[in-house]
């Protein structure tokens, strides 16, 4: 039994050492990693890292709807095209005073002319006045390899009191995000996932 414990401890030390070595050589920048050309060292391939794709998704019936002067929930379909999991921690918002376009259908194909971003719809991201800062989720969201997760962000959207009546009963395509804070790795927990964000 003692031999077994010693062997397990040794294995643990070796694996940790290997992992520490790997971390020491990874780039902090998103990049196409070059293939190794080290002579006699064999060939290894670094992974290409593809961008996450976030699209609008019909929110579940439990999601908070928008009314003039209130906040509502937003539904995000987060797709990870990579063959490894990705952890999403935060999003960055677009410039201030960018409003959403209203649509008559959940698939966002039939625009509502009197409830467009240029009307304006008066529907925007909460904290849109601080677009440069990352808005961190209340918990990390791990999207599995080549998987998609439905993400509900509570109270992330606001409708101003001056929103036109034509915006009642509409679906909104929110202004595009300026970026995300995401990294390779993590253990997927499945979905859908509900979070809030901190400005």
């Amino acid at each position, binding site marked *: 039994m003692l031999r077994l414990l010693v062997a397990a401890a040794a294995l643990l030390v070796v694996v940790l050492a290997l992992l520490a070595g790997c971390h020491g050589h990874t780039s902090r*920048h998103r990049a196409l990693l070059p293939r190794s050309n080290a002579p006699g060292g064999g060939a290894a391939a670094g992974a290409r890292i593809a*961008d*996450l794709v976030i699209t*609008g998704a*019909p929110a579940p019936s439990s999601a908070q709807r928008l009314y003039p002067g209130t906040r509502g*929930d*937003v539904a995000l379909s987060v797709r990870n095209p990579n063959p490894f999991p990705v952890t999403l921690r935060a999003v960055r918002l677009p410039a201030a005073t960018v409003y959403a376009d209203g649509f008559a259908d959940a698939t966002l194909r039939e625009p509502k002319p009197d409830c467009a971003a240029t009307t304006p719809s008066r529907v925007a991201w909460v904290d849109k006045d601080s677009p440069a800062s990352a808005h961190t989720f209340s918990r990390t969201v791990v999207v599995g390899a080549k998987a998609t997760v439905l993400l509900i962000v509570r109270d992330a959207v606001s409708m101003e009191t001056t929103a036109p009546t034509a915006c009642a009963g509409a679906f909104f395509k929110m202004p595009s*995000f300026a970026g995300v804070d995401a*990294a390779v790795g993590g253990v997927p927990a499945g979905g859908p996932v509900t979070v809030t964000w901190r400005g």
Partner: protein
Amino acid sequence: MSQADHMPTRGRRLTRRTKIVAFLVGALMVATGAAASNWIVGLSAGSSGEAQSGTIANLTITTSVPGANADVLYPGGPGDVVISITNPNKFPVTVTGFNLPTNTTYANGYTDSALTTAAAACSAATPSTVSWAFSTATSGSAHTLTSPLVVAATGAANNPLVVTLSDDAAMGGTAPSGCAGLWFKMPSFTGVVATAGGGTVTTSPATSGWTS
């Protein structure tokens, strides 16, 4: 004891050891995999989300019994009207005015406050000459309340909101004597001027009305 007799015991030892090592390695992988790495992932251009707004349901206005202090109608004089406004929406609604029927649209008289027993000698067709004050010959004339009414969201306190419309009923000077001591069901509003949202919810019962 033969070599074969030792095999099952050795097999059990290997199986147990294999299980322990596999457990340790698995636990280690899970532990290290729980954290994201330093490899940064970007976002595809145009990435966005979807939100949805709620629909708007109409307010419901019903009659309510005037209190003992309400102004009652006499020929040629005004009287109070009491209404109950129900807001079925999930948000408060601010009412700023009403649209009235024509000034020749009259109320029906009843002998009871529940408005169940009609007074034959004091109906709209008689006519009772009881109509909305400041109504005109044009149906749909708009009349602004002296103070806006904020009706709470459905399920909240003060919804329905009982409102006394001060002196907003009128009885003509030619009203028949059969209209004395009755309750009147006022002609239906043709519309309401209301918007979603509002400030402080109006406490029930409230008093408002129009004066022109």
